[in-house]
């Protein structure tokens, strides 16, 4: 009877943790990032903060640095993906609770930029959003600039003087995120812009004269690295990670980077706690 029991219980499907690769990638902008030594100039009227999630979704938060109301025209603001496809920020076919099959998703609610930035404290690259680079400009307080609310999914939206708002949609970038780091073996620690496997851009149209005339801020991005190392020897993931560090010596100090430890844990199962198999850090700025 005992043997029968043992036999029965051994016939089920065995799940065994598999960690195939450790992957890393980073993204830069064509223009130089502001630093505490070279902050956003006082006369800049608009600043934009970009964050990218572990699934490769990009969020843009616009800062109105002027004492005037800023009108953003979302019909004339675009995301251009790696494949050249352009999508407007105002798309009447995309509803508020859009499905995952769309390349753009309309968001609601608020976001904490400090958390997205992976900032642990003030100072240095990790603390750039809170201090040193003059993000909000004059008239803002330090804490207010680290939180943002998504603007309405409307053709035109207004930002009050010295306030901020996240553009209504997030877009999935081809070639960026966990799916791009799940398999294979790649060794590209420093990729020049012209040779990058992923170029994408965001254009934001804004007006400071109540919508009479519009200007556009255009930000060009490119992936400047991709390193995927197979895990050799079952479970020896730290050795693969160390190979990444040895190959790319500025890995954890890039302006935006992510690490992904591929695995076969079922993320859809509610009992499996998520978020412990990747690390995303950093934010990217633009201004004019």
């Amino acid at each position, binding site marked *: 009877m005992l043997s029968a029991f043992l036999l029965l219980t051994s016939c089920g499907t065995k799940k065994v943790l598999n960690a195939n690769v450790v992957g890393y990638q980073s993204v830069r902008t064509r223009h130089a990032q502001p630093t505490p030594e070279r902050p956003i100039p006082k006369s800049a009227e608009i600043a934009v903060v970009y964050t990218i999630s572990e699934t490769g979704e990009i969020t843009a938060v616009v800062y109105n640095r002027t004492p005037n109301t800023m009108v953003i025209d979302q019909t004339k603001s675009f995301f251009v993906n790696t494949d050249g496809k352009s999508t407007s920020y105002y798309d009447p076919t995309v509803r508020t609770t859009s499905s995952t099959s769309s390349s753009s998703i309309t968001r609601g609610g608020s976001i904490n930029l400090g958390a997205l930035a992976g900032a642990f404290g003030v100072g*240095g690259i990790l603390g750039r959003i809170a201090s040193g680079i003059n993000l909000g400009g004059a008239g803002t307080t330090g804490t207010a600039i680290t939180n943002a609310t998504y603007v309405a999914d409307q053709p035109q939206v207004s930002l009050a003087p010295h306030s901020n708002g996240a553009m209504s949609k997030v877009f999935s970038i081809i070639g960026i995120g966990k799916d791009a780091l799940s398999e294979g073996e790649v060794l590209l620690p420093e990729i020049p812009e012209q040779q990058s496997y992923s170029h994408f851009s965001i254009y934001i149209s804004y007006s400071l004269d109540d919508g009479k005339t519009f200007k556009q801020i255009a930000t060009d991005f490119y992936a400047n690295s991709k390193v995927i190392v197979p895990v050799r020897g079952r*479970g020896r993931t730290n*050795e693969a990670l160390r190979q990444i560090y040895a190959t790319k*010596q500025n890995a954890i100090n890039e302006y935006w980077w992510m690490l992904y430890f591929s695995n076969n844990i079922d993320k859809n199962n509610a009992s499996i706690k998520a978020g412990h198999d990747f690390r995303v850090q950093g934010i990217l700025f633009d201004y004019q």
Partner: protein
Amino acid sequence: MPKNIIKFLSLAAAILLFHSCTTSQTISIAGTPGTEIYTPDKDKIAVIPATGKAKVRIPGDVYYAYFMSHQVGSNEFVPFALDFNRCNYAGKRAARILSYPAAALGAIMVGLGAANTAGEEDGSLRGPFIGGGTIITAAGITGAIALHKQLKQTQLRYRYKYLSSQSTNEDFTFTHPIDNGFIRTVKNEPQRSETQVENSEGTPAATSTAARRRGKTSTATRNLRDNGKQVAGTYVGTGRLLLNGEEVESYTDIKVVVKRIDENNVLVEVYESGEAFFNTGDKYSIKKASSGKFTLSLKGIPSATITISKNKNMVYLHPKVNIEGEIYTLEIKASLQE
């Protein structure tokens, strides 16, 4: 004899209960004393003590691919992956299998005891059968429920166990990226006057009014504020490696190569008898004193410094050199090679 069987079964029930209670794993993380350990959720879970090893408990229902190490005073949080091995948890699986028949056996014993048919004419086994049977039934049911729940936890479900000894990646020194992007210019931003002065012979004067007051000048290419350029070069000398204040190695052929990154930052590489001493070069920031002496500080390790005198004599001190888990101090004295 039956009493011995009852004792054995009760002991087995106790073991069953024990296997159903443990739901976490304790691992040891090696690193520099004082290093903080964080989870991916940014919770600080340990500080490495003087022994160089910290104990961390990981719940069985959570999967962690990595933790992070952080040195106080540094801005860097360095991920290190958690290695693991396959583990079938055969003991727990067997215990779960046995818990059902154990519960059934216990119930039978209770029944037999109650019916006073335990086989002894004086009924002396009735009590042990009922008592023992109750314990075994309770253990069987409790064990079955608890083990069923445990075996659904991530570690047991996916049959893995973390290696009992892990280590951080703090031996890596990370450089900062060099941003080659073009600098945005903003309209109406006031332009700062440059120190460079145009040659006034036949060309418009420089924007600086101070320069105009000085009259005719000749433009020099020298940049006195480029500290990186002033300290760059190869320094040759001797060095030694110390452990807890005692010299363990001495070096007669040491080269310290200082390469300019920008005006206030340099990359420093150390070579001993022609071989690189570290895995990677280190980025140092530069401060210049009014005496003409330069002090270079290592990003992330403030106690690691290089001083270069006006006469280009270097004193190099690095108190946090990690060699196979031990922390050494490297001292070098060198002079600029002409």
